[in-house]
């Protein structure tokens, strides 16, 4: 058997695939963050809490309304997205003229409050959420056992990421968005309702987080801290990709998932820190991130 640094080739393939799956979560979450930062200039620290809310709403839909996974996949992002819209209108919209720091403090505080409320109500052990029956079981690939659900996660997140990218890069709405990022005053002068655009963008970014939350519910423990654990990593992903860069966040999300996966094989103890080491290195060489524009 061919081995690389003592690890069989086949095992390595399996690990790379798993890395890609984790990368899917990073990609969707960092995409939402990048869109929000790109357009609103808000560093959305509530993103992790909104991801967690996505998973909890899926659980609530199942337990209180009897609606299963597929409904949750559509409804949870809408519900949490609406919550985001309200948040933006009530609070965040008041901060656009101020320094980044205020947005960061506000969203960080909100995240703590939301997590605290959920923790108070549901505890930290988590809630059970089963894999939908259509996707249970798995495929025995030559190099590993791939649960069907994990395959679905990669496909779903790729589709969502590419669709979002296409909308932003190739449609008229996307053109407005990009223009408004560049120069909001000028775009407003052309008769585009920029505040509405901002609200909807925030809602959409939040909906992406909730979508990732629903995807995560069957495989990770649905608990109030699930967002806090992942959000710091996702921020590192966004910084590496370049703050506000859409393509950058998608590509870096998947790539860092792969790198983290490899670390888990060769030096597992470092797997929780490797992304931050890369972040430091990237910032030393390219302070604006891999795909970012230097101001």
């Amino acid at each position: 058997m061919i081995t690389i640094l003592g690890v069989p080739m086949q095992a390595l393939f399996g690990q790379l695939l798993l890395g890609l799956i984790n990368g899917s979560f990073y990609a969707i979450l960092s995409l939402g963050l990048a869109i929000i930062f790109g357009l609103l200039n808000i560093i959305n620290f509530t993103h992790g809490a909104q991801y967690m809310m996505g998973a909890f709403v899926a659980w609530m839909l199942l337990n209180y309304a009897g609606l299963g996974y597929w409904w949750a996949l559509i409804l949870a992002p809408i519900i949490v997205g609406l919550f985001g819209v309200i948040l933006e209108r009530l609070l965040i919209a008041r901060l656009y003229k101020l320094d980044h720091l205020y947005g960061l403090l506000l969203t960080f505080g909100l995240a703590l409050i939301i997590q605290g409320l959920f923790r108070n109500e549901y505890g930290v052990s988590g809630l059970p959420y089963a894999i939908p029956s259509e996707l249970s079981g798995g495929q025995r690939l030559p190099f590993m056992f791939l649960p069907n659900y994990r395959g679905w996660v990669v496909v779903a997140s790729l589709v969502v990421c590419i669709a979002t990218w296409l909308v932003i890069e190739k449609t008229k709405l996307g053109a407005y968005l990009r223009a408004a990022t560049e120069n909001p005053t000028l775009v407003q002068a052309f008769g585009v309702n920029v505040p509405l655009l901002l609200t909807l963008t925030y809602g959409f970014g939040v909906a992406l987080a909730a979508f990732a939350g629903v995807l995560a519910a069957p495989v990770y423990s649905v608990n109030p801290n699930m967002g806090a654990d992942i959000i710091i990593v996702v921020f590192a992903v966004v910084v590496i990709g370049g703050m506000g860069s859409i393509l950058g966040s998608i590509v870096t999300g998947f790539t860092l998932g792969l790198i983290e996966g490899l670390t888990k094989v060769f030096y597992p103890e470092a797997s929780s820190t490797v992304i931050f080491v890369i972040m430091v290195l990237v910032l030393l060489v390219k302070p604006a991130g891999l795909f970012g524009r230097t101001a």
Partner: protein
Amino acid sequence: MLTRLLLATALGALAAGTALAQTPVKIGVLNDRSGVYADLSGEGSVVAARMAVEDFKAADKGLKVEIVSADHQNKPDVGASLARQWYDRDGVDAIFDVPTSSVALAVAQVSREKNKAFIDSGAGTADLTGPQCAPTTVHWTYDTVALANGTGSAMVKRGGDTWYFLTADYAFGQALQRDTTAVVTKNGGKVVGSVKTPFPTSDFSSFLLQAQASKAKVIGLANAGGDTINAIKQAAEFGITEGGQALAGLLIFSSDVHALTPKVAQGLVFTEPFYWDLNDGTRAFSDRFAKLSGGKKPTAVQAGVYASVLHYLKAVEALKESGDGTKVVAKMKELPTDDPLFGKGTIRPDGRKIHDMYLFEVKKPGESKNPWDLYKTLATIPAAEAFRPLNEGNCPLVAKN
């Protein structure tokens, strides 16, 4: 006589009364209130401590007990500085619970230095009564050696003679792996590999795949709380048990199994000193506890806090003082323990509390009648066999004797 009776009643009513020579006792419950161990300890441990004070009828016995609590966030530095602050500034006499071994070891050091009683329920590391034992430490509920003894030898006897460990990368995980390895090899088994996982971890798939590739018959989960839940949930997803490998949860609490549901956790074998449905005593306590905690049944850790506070108060009552930690702990070791949850027992010179342990198996979904009907008892491990023999722990307190 009548006046004395009247006085006693008045004192009982006025818990804050200062009239007669009441012994003030300040108890600190220090644990995880927001992280992965918050459900197995957390507010539930405070509730248990309050129940113990109530059941002891402390006010009638001349003790004025006050309970404070704090969140150590599973960080040794935070835990140690909270302990210091409590002892130096707030007049706390004894610290209880303290899950997370790394924090417990730090708090044990501070308590020894300040000569205050430290009665641990939540932490696992057997080092607390081993090389790091102290005249001020009592380790109540369980430890890594007892867990390893129970689950390790049971699994080997069932044919699981090759092991692979998923180990939480900190003091507790390492101690658990070390102690289980000793038991497995002693029983004729072999450890074929292990992987250290960062604490906490949400995605175990990569580590599970490595465990799968090792072809070991048993995958030992040397972790706890949220880590264990994620690992078991994902092991089911990756078809680990269907592939013929068995999972051994080296530290499982009822709150974990409740969160996983029997559907995911069925068949899991593990060791614990307490289950709410063991006997009339545990059931009565657990029903009262559930009423005060939104329907949740107590975990072994919370039961340990109840029983240890009860015994601590007995010692303080006998001494009529609570300030000198060494004296109080010596009294606790001298008095036999007796409570409805762990039965009769003793505390050894090294600080280890001795009681029976149980080997449990998670029920199948069909056998479980309600969300908290989780375990069936496979075996009772007698107190004498459950824990590490007194002379094998390298505890300096024992060596001197």
